[in-house]
């Protein structure tokens, strides 16, 4: 196994999709009476359609007055400014400094989450907990504990971690770094655990049988095999961290996010676009670095990347100068205890359980609408954005489509939400549209890579017997891609449910809006109740998404 593996295989692991798509061919499958799967899929498809219709109805589509016609002029001015970004030397300097800050947050956050992921990945892998002697149970009980303890950090969005940590550690770059590293560390641990468990067992077992310790056996028999994929995934995480660093910037960590917020509130659209272009450039750079490593991962390149990565980490540390002392100082402990005592017991909002439940539902509806919109657009654009077209115009279209995807995911959801609030009255709809636009950029990119990695031979063999392009596409490519598209959409649905909190902050509705109101009023017991509800919603969405995805396998 080399580092040439492409991204979807790795993210597929995150999605829990892999067992269904392993291998290029279509080997025989055992088990399950025929037809059961199909009817399961149909049920899920019907449920999804009903849920989206219900969300649309609840958001007031077709019933209420939603559009504020006065805002169109502002939207027009906003997009017109795309052609006239502010390029004064002064502001370019500001942009550069802000970009460096955002990159530094992302780099340190990623480095820490990869370190946490390595340790956590080993500790949550089945390989680590498997008994060498045949016993009553295959796994030691520690496995369940370690797996379960990763769920909570994953279930809370970076922005909420940021709000919590700033109350404990005060205003310090440490807050932004940890806010990225905690949830991303848990996600990375999950993926790394699966990479470890997927490596061949025999070498590890052989070493263990001769009395080698677990750590040494892992180091000699498992990690060398899994390392290239782990590194490749780390780069994917770097891109995710960049986007998170921008969102954290909007809520106080500085950098591009903060400047974006300022520019937008000051209606300085020229400045906004300058910042967006800087963000697009940085994301593109991370994308190119990571994918060059994935596609042509020679040992030299891997070494160079490791070296470059280390240099980046050091430079980022020097740039941000986080104060590690705060982590262990007395004030942090005092603030944590103070926060805990003032937040406990959690308290319901003014309108009680009903209010909490209504907002939780609104959150789910927002995420459903967002993902329905994002997937519908992404499916179309993914096929356009596929690399390696045969003709020059086809490649030009693909390049343009990729640029659109890059730009839509470079603009953070709160900014999208503010944009939609120009023309829509506040409520769940602008929030859903904002999350939809942002996730469209991410899903479109993931789906385009799914298409690029499909087995091309079935379609080629249909063309060989004289099938027109459209027919070959419909009989081979579409059915091969569909279940993977659905799995990625379901996976992004989980993420979107957590992200609703960041559009709620700008008034788009749901639990996020409640959290922001409670924060403004220093209502800690209320915030605790809201965060707990958020975790419950995200667990419920995870469960629904996971069982829907199982029907796809």
């Amino acid at each position, binding site marked *: 196994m080399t580092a040439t593996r492409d991204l979807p295989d790795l993210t597929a692991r995150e999605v829990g999709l892999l067992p269904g798509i392993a291998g290029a*061919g279509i080997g025989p499958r055992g088990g399950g009476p025929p037809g059961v799967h*199909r009817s399961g899929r149909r049920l899920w498809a019907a449920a999804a359609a009903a849920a989206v219709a219900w969300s649309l109805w609840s958001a007031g589509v077709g019933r209420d007055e939603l559009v504020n016609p006065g805002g169109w002029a502002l939207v027009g001015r906003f997009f017109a400014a795309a052609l006239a970004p502010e390029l004064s030397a002064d502001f370019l300097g500001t942009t550069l400094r802000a970009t460096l800050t955002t990159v530094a947050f992302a780099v340190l956050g990623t480095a820490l989450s990869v370190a946490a992921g390595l340790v956590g990945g080993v500790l949550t892998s089945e390989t680590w907990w498997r008994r060498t002697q045949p016993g009553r149970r295959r796994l030691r009980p520690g496995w369940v504990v370690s797996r379960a303890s990763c769920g909570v950090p994953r279930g809370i969005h970076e922005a909420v971690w940021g709000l919590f940590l700033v109350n404990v550690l005060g205003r310090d770059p440490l807050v932004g770094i940890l806010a990225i590293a905690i949830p991303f560390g848990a996600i990375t641990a999950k993926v790394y655990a699966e990479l470890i468990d997927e490596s061949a067992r025999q070498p590890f077992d052989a070493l263990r049988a001769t009395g080698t310790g677990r750590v040494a056996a892992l180091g000699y028999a498992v990690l060398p095999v899994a390392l290239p994929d782990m590194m490749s995934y780390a780069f994917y995480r770097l891109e995710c961290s960049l986007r998170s660093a921008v969102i954290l910037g909007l809520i106080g960590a500085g950098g591009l996010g903060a400047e974006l917020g300022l520019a937008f509130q000051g209606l300085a659209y020229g400045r906004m676009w300058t910042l967006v272009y800087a963000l697009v450039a940085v994301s593109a750079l991370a994308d190119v670095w990571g994918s060059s490593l994935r596609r042509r991962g020679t040992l030299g390149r891997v070494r160079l990347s490791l070296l470059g990565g280390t240099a980046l980490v050091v430079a980022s540390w020097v740039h941000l100068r986080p104060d590690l002392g705060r982590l262990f100082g007395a004030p942090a402990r005092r603030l944590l205890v103070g926060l805990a005592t003032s937040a406990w017991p959690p308290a319901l909002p003014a309108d009680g359980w009903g209010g909490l439940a209504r907002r939780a539902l609104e959150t789910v509806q927002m995420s459903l609408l967002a993902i329905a919109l994002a997937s519908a657009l992404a499916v179309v654009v993914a096929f356009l954005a596929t690399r390696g077209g045969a003709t020059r115009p086809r490649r030009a279209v693909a390049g343009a489509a990729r640029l659109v995807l890059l730009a839509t995911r470079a603009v953070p959801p709160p900014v999208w939400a503010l944009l939609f609030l120009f023309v829509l009255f506040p409520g769940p709809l602008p929030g859903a549209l904002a999350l939809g636009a942002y996730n469209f950029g991410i899903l479109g990119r993931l789906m385009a890579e799914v298409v690029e990695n499909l087995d091309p031979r079935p379609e080629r063999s249909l063309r060989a017997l004289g099938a027109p392009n459209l027919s070959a596409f419909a009989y081979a490519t579409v059915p091969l891609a569909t279940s993977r598209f659905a799995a990625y959409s379901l996976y992004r649905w989980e993420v979107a449910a957590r992200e609703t909190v960041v559009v709620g902050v700008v008034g788009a509705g749901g639990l996020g809006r409640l959290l922001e109101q409670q924060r403004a009023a220093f209502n800690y017991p209320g915030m605790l109740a809201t965060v707990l509800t958020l975790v419950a919603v995200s667990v419920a969405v995870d469960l629904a998404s996971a069982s829907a995805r199982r029907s796809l396998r």
Partner: protein
Amino acid sequence: MPEVIVSLRGVSVVYDGHPALHGFDLEVQAGERLALVGPSGAGKTTVLQLCTGAATATTGTVTVLGTELATAPAARLKSVRRRVGAIHQQLHLVGPLRVVHNVNAGHLGTWSRTRALRSLVRPVGLDEARSALGRVGIADKLLERTDRLSGGEQQRVALARVLVQAPELILADEPVSSLDPARAEEVLDLLREVVVGRSRTLVVSLHDFDLARRRCDRVVGLRAGRVAFDLPAGEVSDQHGHDLYRIAT
């Protein structure tokens, strides 16, 4: 005088400076069942690829069904392709589709786009697909998902697709190399039946020398890109096989 289906004349193929075929000549008559045998890398797959147009001759001419492929206009080439059916070792079926659609894919060369798309929603030609599956012994699998079938059943689906396509020439590249000996015989029997039943022509590449002798009419041995022997199956001796597979000296 029998019709010539395939004719390769003085064909050489060079991949990246590495020669795959040298001055290769082969003529296949209508109704023949011909086996290409030889060690790995002898050029068997290249010969089949030349016939489908997937590979092009560096020198020499390739004529399939009366059309010289290198000089034919696109429309002519397309009509030739419709009349040539191919079975690949990896089958190239689409796993998530139901069996009926994978069989109907054999029609795609002649079906219009709208008919092809409509059939994905509501299958067209169910009876024909069922009878094709019946001929390979799995009529009951018509509406199942293809990736739920066993390897042998999937092989039969690929055969049913070729039946539905009803080509004049069937090319099969190592169709049985992933099957156990009993199943390999079975699949070759089915292939033979298909060919005899519709008086068509079969060119199949095989690793198994004995299988080729038993199941085909004519055996062409390839070695290092050249014809080592070209004999009726009855005249091929064990010595031929021995010479063909001996490690080069």
